[in-house]
């Protein structure tokens, strides 16, 4: 690899990618005999390098891949310069998103039952933002109603490697300890 280290190449590849990339996705960039495991190791080393050097960039694992992202403490400066408005997520939107994220795939009627209010408008706006999608239809119910799920964009937006990395709800455990059956129902 003539003077280049695997780590350097991987760094360039991740930087040049538009969306988060996994070690497997980077494999075609090598004609040499390189294993996904080696790339993964290089990625983890890179991540540490950036942390150690207190770089403005962090190598973050999001949506099943890796992406360079700026450090959160730089956001004010970047927002001042940026022309794009940061995503506006109302509490209603976040709550609906939370229900979909933890219970997907889920019917609109189920979302409405949990939140106690109509979900149509919020769902539409979440779908426009590409955070929620119709993933399938429930064939067992009359009329085959649509089922909603979160998108890859959701994971990217919320800095999540995968759905299993959704934050656990510890605060609630302290507040209402004696309701495991409800908790399990919601977050199993």
């Amino acid at each position, binding site marked *: 690899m003539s003077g280049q280290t695997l780590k350097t190449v991987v760094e360039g590849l991740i*930087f040049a990618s*538009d969306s988060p990339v996994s070690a497997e996705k980077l494999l075609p960039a090598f004609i040499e005999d390189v294993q996904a495991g080696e790339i993964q190791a290089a990625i983890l080393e890179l991540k540490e390098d950036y942390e150690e050097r207190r770089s403005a960039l*962090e190598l*973050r694992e999001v949506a099943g891949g890796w*992406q*360079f*992202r*700026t*450090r*959160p403490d*730089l*956001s004010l400066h*970047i*927002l001042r*310069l*940026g*022309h*794009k408005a*940061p*995503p506006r*997520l109302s*509490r*209603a939107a*976040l*709550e609906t*998103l*939370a*229900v979909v*994220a*933890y219970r997907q795939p889920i019917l609109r009627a189920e979302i409405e*039952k*949990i*939140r*106690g*209010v*109509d979900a149509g408008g919020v769902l539409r706006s979440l779908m*426009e933002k590409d955070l929620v999608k119709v993933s399938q239809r429930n064939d067992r119910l009359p009329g085959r109603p649509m089922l909603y799920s979160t998108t890859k964009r959701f994971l*990217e*937006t*919320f*800095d*999540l490697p995968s759905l299993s990395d*959704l*934050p656990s*709800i510890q*605060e*609630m455990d302290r*507040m*209402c300890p*004696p*309701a495991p059956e*409800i*908790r399990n*129902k*919601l*977050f199993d």
Partner: protein
Amino acid sequence: MNGKRKLIDFSVDFPEGESFDGPLDLLLFLIKKNEVDVYDLPVSLITSQYLEYLAHMEKLNLDVAGDFLVMAATLAQIKSRMLLFKEEDEEEEPAEDPRMALVRPLVEYALVREAAEALGSRYILDRDVFARGSSLEPSPEEPSSEGPLEKFSLFELVEAWRGLASRPKEKGPGLEFNLETVTIGERLETIREFLLARKSARFRELESESSGPLETALSFLAVLELARVGFLKLYQDTESDLDGPRLFLYDSEALASRSFDYR
């Protein structure tokens, strides 16, 4: 305990200008405000404060949504059942606390609120953290959906169609019979493949010099159909696009995976 409570004024100061998102939202607010246990809900206290809020809403001339009224009825029902429940308590058969009908959805909603807060406090892309190029102006190749460009689309598309439809006349007089029929499905397929390869194109580019009015009309319909189902966007730069509107591939994944069945 009830006697003591009656001595204190339990009227609630509702937050000015802030409305509640739904009956569950309001109930959770009251539970927090009164610092009561959700599993041992003082139904009568909560109900009276709940109704107080509905009255407060009416005073402000706000429409009390149906959801709030349904909950008011539920509260009243639970309140009345509580009286029966306490009598039954003496007997051996343990009945379920009527409040559970309210507690379950309340706890579930509280969990959702918690989850929503957890989500909202994460490092959100384009708000707290930024990936390469994500914070700056969207590139001209991908106009934002709120851009001023969409206003023009239909009108300009019709203009483009007029331009194309008038072109075959240049071929001069004479009758032409073309027995080869093109279907809209075929045009859709062609345009789709064209766009998947090119990402964007001008309407004019979809046509070859030899294509007749029928084919052009079908292209026009196919483009409208593709735009209708949301797979492409039509837009025109106000200054530079004098050549007619451009077609934009909107959702390449969906376009690639979806099959069209038009005959």
